[in-house]
């Protein structure tokens, strides 16, 4: 910790160094009523140098010469220009601009644009809205407050960074994450490495005009994050932010399961049928549950039937989920502290911040700590003509991942733990479980001198130490130089490095290690040989990411002849990012002295458990990976506004990458956009007093996306001799030559309308978009004579459209304030071209995995088999085959015509949004956010009888099953079949009976705060806010009649939580 304080202090000293310049201009800015305007911006024209007025409206600024011109602007007022005469005070009166919408600047990562002069589709989250919610990562706060942006729940694409979709899917198989830009450069690292308290604002770029400047990475949308910066000529300000969040304990009963008693009944039934005979004599000695062991003992006369029955009845009252609640879960506590300091002199400004987070997860054993340090400073030199900026961002994360997953208690590798397991006896002493092997076998092993093989849950907890540490740096430097009036050049350089290390130490005392050692033990003539040595097992893995971005850019921004506003940028950038990973395992590790032992990975060993299994190899863990990501790009973006009314914008970008093919790099078509805007309210004929702001926008253009899994050259991957069936290292061809491989393109047309009524009573925007995916990466069938049956290349198309609507209304503006924000987003994207046809409809359409692209359908869709209810005779599920009711499950499942399946619709919400109401009274504010998701379907899980009939605790629908004639009228859960029939199970779980609408409305959160502002100008404390925030409050309405949250069918929903916090500025 000392180290960080030292760095912090050093940076502080550095920040105070500043250069001096010759002339000083000072003055006061006031409104037309004479009241001073605090926070007005005073900029030396043609430079980047500027200051803000203080609370009395005073400013003081250094200027290059007496003849410099100062541009003075303030939100809601017309900008005024004055000569900077240094000899006398300048008093400026600004005139209100009735028609002006709050002058909002949007950041696209290359430049800041006034929103009024932009044509593209931007969604902005300002600091106040961003800080409304509490959370340790930077993107989750965008949920339910950003039009067009949705956090997908359910299946997550492996390797995805965020699981966010902006305006629906833009790709089938390539990277689906939006591009995240932090401080002008793409950020591909860990979302947890950025402290949300350092964020100034977030802009989401949604259409081609907004995003195509990001070229081949922009098709999924771009999220531009700007961190806090200080301003020039600003007194030293210190801010403090602290909050603490408590969540409820996870509910192990959320997912419905069979009761212990129901499972025991099944075990008794199965035992009477001789089901466990095979396991009793199996050479693998699989563990049997305590009930089955009791039944065996009673059968063999080792205990009386009565004694067995009594003990079994005692088991019926137990539930292992009570043990989970007691031993595995707790209420989580997350603490967050942030301290910031900023200030600015005439020619320099600086900001320092430090953050500390400490989370104790709801799963005992998991925890997280994070320290972030952020320092940035700018120095203005050459009389304000040049500005040099440097910044460093440092994060240190330390995570403990020692939570016990209930699967650790599994009875065998294929069967979950018996539901009546208990971890302690009545006296609280830890008890072993029947785990993997039968106790009789364990006793025999013990007598032969093997390590103790029993599994005691409560002593296991804590025997594995899994720790992950990560350090991230980002170092930015930038130089901006004003060449001529309105023309400037800048160079930006970012170096980024991240280093993470995972260390997993499994003690020799842990069951997993003892089990591995024992399985690889051989006993001959009383002497013991251990192929896996005694000692701990240490797994370590390292991942290093380092790279640089460099950018050179020319900026031009000038108002010509009073009517022609021209803004343009052009530049080039280079990016080189290398990822290197390595991992290895040490057997026989002794953490005291750091020694470990060699093992023989190549020989085959006999299993101690089942000597007939002779070809077991010691598990090898380790490898070396490396990825290189390189881009060279050229871009240009220009905007022209005539008379403040008509806006024309255009952008173009050319990307070359080591991921693309030769042809795409050499003669690729650039990605471009064009846009038009019309500020109707500036027109003379448009003089509606009640509608002071009305703007129309239209844009057209292309965004790109890349697929890192493909390569343009012939590629092969090596396998080691140990992986070969003949013991010779070999290579497998992964990719045929594909010199035409290129980025995916998404064409977007966006039409928008922004409005604001008088006094901002009602404001908002409505946007319609059309989105077309062209050259998406997809499969195409090939003649097998080519050596391949399918080819992955730019072969698929999608098409769709949607709507984003946002309306803000000020319902009450008196002492009691009431504001409402309503958001509605609609996005429906369908596959329009996909060449392969499924040859396995059941696997491709009826399982729960990602969808099979199908022309004319949503990519993520839900299909099912027609269901004809339950047979009133015996409760068998019935389907429809060629128009006839059928119970031929094999035939029902091997359907080969896609039209025979019921197509329900999208499995992702087509419509979503939120409604936020804010009430204020004096310093008090109360707000509530309600979110909704509509227009989609989900497949509910249900009972699978092959699990029930193997004595495993299956789904809780078991108790709702058909049991007697007449039950078919009120349940669709089939009866318990006499014998396990997997096709019957598969038919039922794929049937329409289990498909439900997912539509629901959720009370996302509630926030109550009190803020206080000092009345005095130079108070020690400027303002304070204290707040309470409750999140994940639950579902208000849902279409489906089932008990489960439609978005959380296989796992628990996010835990309800409450936070308390304070923010203060000094």
């Amino acid at each position: 910790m000392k180290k960080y304080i030292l760095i912090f202090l050093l940076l502080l000293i550095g920040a105070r160094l500043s250069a001096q310049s010759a002339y000083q201009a000072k003055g006061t800015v006031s409104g037309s009523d004479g009241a001073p305007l605090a926070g007005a911006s005073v900029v030396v024209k043609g430079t980047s140098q500027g200051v803000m007025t203080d609370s009395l409206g005073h400013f003081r600024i250094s200027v290059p010469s007496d003849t410099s011109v100062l541009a003075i602007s303030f939100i809601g007022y017309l900008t005024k220009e004055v000569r900077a005469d240094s000899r006398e005070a300048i008093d400026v009166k600004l005139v209100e601009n009735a028609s002006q919408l709050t002058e909002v600047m949007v950041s696209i990562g290359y430049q800041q644009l006034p929103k009024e002069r932009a044509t593209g589709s931007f969604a902005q989250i300002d600091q106040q809205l961003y800080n409304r919610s509490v959370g340790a990562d930077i993107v989750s706060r965008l949920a339910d407050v950003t039009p067009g942006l949705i956090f997908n729940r359910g299946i997550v694409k492996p390797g995805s960074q965020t699981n966010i979709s902006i305006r629906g899917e833009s790709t089938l198989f390539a990277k689906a994450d939006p591009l995240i830009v932090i401080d002008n450069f793409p950020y591909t690292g860990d979302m947890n490495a950025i402290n949300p308290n350092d964020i100034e604002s977030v802009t989401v770029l949604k259409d081609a005009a907004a995003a195509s400047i990001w070229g081949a990475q922009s098709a999924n949308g771009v999220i531009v994050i700007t961190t806090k910066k200080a301003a020039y000529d600003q007194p030293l300000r210190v801010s403090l932010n602290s909050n603490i969040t408590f969540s409820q304990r996870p509910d192990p009963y959320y997912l419905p399961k069979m009761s212990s008693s129901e499972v025991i009944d099944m075990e008794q039934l199965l035992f009477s049928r001789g089901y466990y005979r095979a396991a009793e004599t199996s050479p693998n000695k699989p563990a049997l549950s305590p009930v089955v062991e009791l039944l065996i003992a009673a059968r063999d006369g080792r205990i009386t039937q009565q004694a067995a029955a009594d003990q079994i009845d005692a088991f019926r009252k137990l539930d292992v989920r009570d043990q989970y609640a007691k031993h595995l879960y707790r209420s989580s506590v997350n603490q967050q502290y942030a301290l910031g300091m900023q200030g600015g002199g005439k020619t320099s400004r600086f900001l320092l911040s430090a953050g500390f987070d400490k989370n104790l997860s709801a799963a005992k054993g998991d925890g997280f700590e994070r320290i972030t340090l952020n320092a940035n400073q700018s120095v203005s030199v050459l009389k304000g003509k040049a500005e040099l900026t440097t910044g460093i961002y440092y994060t240190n994360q330390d995570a403990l991942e020692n939570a016990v997953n209930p699967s650790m208690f599994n009875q065998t590798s294929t069967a979950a733990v018996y539901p009546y397991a208990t971890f302690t006896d009545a006296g609280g002493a830890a008890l072993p479980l029947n785990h993997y092997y039968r106790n009789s076998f364990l006793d025999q092993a013990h007598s032969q001198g093997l390590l103790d093989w029993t599994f005691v849950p409560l002593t296991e907890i804590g025997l594995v130490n899994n720790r992950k540490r990560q350090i991230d740096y980002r170092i930015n430097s930038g130089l901006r130089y004003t060449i001529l009036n309105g023309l400037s050049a800048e160079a930006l350089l970012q170096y980024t490095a991240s280093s993470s290390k995972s260390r997993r130490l499994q003690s020799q005392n842990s069951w997993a290690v003892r089990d591995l050692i024992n399985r690889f033990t051989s006993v001959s003539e009383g002497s013991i040989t251990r192929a896996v040595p005694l000692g701990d097992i240490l797994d370590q893995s390292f991942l290093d990411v380092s790279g640089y971005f460099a950018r050179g850019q020319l900026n031009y921004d000038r108002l010509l002849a009073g009517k022609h506003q021209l803004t343009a940028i052009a530049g080039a950038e280079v990016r080189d990012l290398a990822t290197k990973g390595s991992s290895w395992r040490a057997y026989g590790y002794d953490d005291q002295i750091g020694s470990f032992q060699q093992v023989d990975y190549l020989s085959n060993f006999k299993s101690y458990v089942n000597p007939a299994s002779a070809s077991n190899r010691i598990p090898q863990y380790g490898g070396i990976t490396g990825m290189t990501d390189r881009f060279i790009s050229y871009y240009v973006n220009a905007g022209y506004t005539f008379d403040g009314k008509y806006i024309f914008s255009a952008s173009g970008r050319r990307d070359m990458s080591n991921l693309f093919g030769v042809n795409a790099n050499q003669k690729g078509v650039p990605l471009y956009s064009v846009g038009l805007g019309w500020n109707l309210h500036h027109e003379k004929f448009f003089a509606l007093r009640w509608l002071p702001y009305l703007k129309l926008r239209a844009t057209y253009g292309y965004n790109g996306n890349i697929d890192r899994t493909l390569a343009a050259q012939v590629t092969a991957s090596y396998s080691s001799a140990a992986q070969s069936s003949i013991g010779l290292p070999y290579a497998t061809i992964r990719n045929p030559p594909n010199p035409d491989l290129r980025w995916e393109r998404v064409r977007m047309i966006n039409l928008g309308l922004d409005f604001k009524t008088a006094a901002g009573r009602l404001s908002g925007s409505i946007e319609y978009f059309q989105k077309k995916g062209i050259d998406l990466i997809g499969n195409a069938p090939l003649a097998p004579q080519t050596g391949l049956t399918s080819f992955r290349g730019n072969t698929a198309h999608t098409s769709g459209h949607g709507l984003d609507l946002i309306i803000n209304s000020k319902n009450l503006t008196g002492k009691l304030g009431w504001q409402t924000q309503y958001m509605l987003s609609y996005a429906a994207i369908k596959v329009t071209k996909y060449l392969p046809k499924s040859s396995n409809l059941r696997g491709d359409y009826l399982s729960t995995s990602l969808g099979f692209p199908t022309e004319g359908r949503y990519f993520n869709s839900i299909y099912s088999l027609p269901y004809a209810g339950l047979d009133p005779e015996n409760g068998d599920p019935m389907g429809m085959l060629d128009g006839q009711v059928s119970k031929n499950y094999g035939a029902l499942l091997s359907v080969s015509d896609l039209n025979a399946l019921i197509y329900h619709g999208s499995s992702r919400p087509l419509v979503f949004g939120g409604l936020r109401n804010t009430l204020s009274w004096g310093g008090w504010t109360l707000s509530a956010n309600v979110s909704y998701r509509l227009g989609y379907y989900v497949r509910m899980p249900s009972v699978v009888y092959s699990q029930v009939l193997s004595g495993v605790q299956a789904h809780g629908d078991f108790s709702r099953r058909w049991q007697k004639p007449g039950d078919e009228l009120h349940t669709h859960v089939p009866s318990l079949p006499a014998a396990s029939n997997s096709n019957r199970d598969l038919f039922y779980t794929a049937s329409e009976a289990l498909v439900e609408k997912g539509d629901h409305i959720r009370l996302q959160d509630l926030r109550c705060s009190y803020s206080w502002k000092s009345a005095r100008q130079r108070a020690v404390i400027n303002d304070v806010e204290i707040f309470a925030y409750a999140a994940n409050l639950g579902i208000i309405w849902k279409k489906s009649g089932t008990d489960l949250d439609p978005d959380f069918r296989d796992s628990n929903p996010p835990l309800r939580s409450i936070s308390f916090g304070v923010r203060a500025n000094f």
Partner: protein
Amino acid sequence: MNRYLIWPVMSALLLMSACQQDFMDAKPDKALVVPTTIVDYQAILDNFNTMNTPGLNLIAGDEFVTTDQMYQALEQVERQTYLWADDLYEGGSSTDWESCYKAVFTANIVLEGAAKLAGEAPSTELDNLLGYAYFYRANAFYGLAQQFAPAYEPQNAHAQMGIPLKLSAQVTTTEPRATLQQTYQQILSDLEQSQKLITSESVWRNRPSRAAALALKARVYLAMGAYDLAEQNASASLAINGQLVDFNELDAKASLTFPDSPRQANKEVIFYGRMNFYLFFFTPYYQVDPVLYASYDSTDLRKQCYYDTLADGAVWYKGSYAGSFGFFSGLANDELYLIRAECRARQGDTAPALADLNTLLEKRYKKGTFKPVQASEPSQALRVIIAERRKELVARGIRWTDLRRLNREKEFETLIRRRIDGKNYVLAPGSLKYTFPIPENEISASGIQQNPR
């Protein structure tokens, strides 16, 4: 701070993009290899499982049978094949067709890649690499021709359809079916190329050698009925390494009789290759044809070394030279002795033919019990040789070709009968069913002509 500082930064950026060619050539993923060296191409050819040969013809042939019960448990394509149905794949794909063309594609990638290396100093390694690739391509084309094209007859070969001869790795172009004559010519010319370039023997027997190229040529010429050329090539290969395993030295009790590594393969093995896996090939789905099993003398060691009996009396085959449950379809000296014996007998050289046969059989019988085969007429010798061929070369993927060529001679005709679920099925000599249909996904994608069935 100087205004000129901006220009060095800008020009550095431009410079960086100027040398972009190298910069852009960096491979995105370390685990991916863009093959450029002999070592890379060798590793691609060492991907043993991509070089498997067709296996479905073994199910259609007369070496193995199955029961009603096990028949139901087979994969659909295996059931269809077993009963010689008209439509084998029912819209599905053919593993045999795809795996052979995958081997062709692999060989073509190597041939095209090695051509780029040829500019560098020529080397034995490069010659070997090319020789391997030609061999693998010939072996795959030959395997395809045995299953998907009719049996070779010199008088019809110009008119009959062979297989598509894909000679480039370009996946966007397809080839029509060549004639049968062109097909065999391509196989032979690939083998000629291979034979010229390759070393005489290999340590890793999954890698081809000159002995293997010659042996495969002997096999191809036999299938073409060119007995003189078959004999010549068999002799040339046997001259390199004509060793035979004495079955008296084997452990007949071992669960698998032969070693399972191409490095320690038995000394008879010239080229270690395997057939595609099918469920049918695993015990207890098949059993050895009872007639075949009964044909061995009690002192014939092959009866113990090749077979084992299950509890229910079914006989399964454990004598694969691959030493695994996957069947051997490579080349071995026993086949060469039999090829040469047959060719010699057919050319009227009875004594040398019998000498070859007896050399082999002596190693197969229990020591002291072997009585050399005697014959006065070449035709008498030929009958024994043909019978021994079936008994020796079990489950090697050779029998199907033998059935197709021997069915043209009245004396050696075979009528295969099946009985499943009380229904009888017959495969008559000369039936169109001896040529497998081409899978539908090939026909629809490349438009090549289907076989009559």
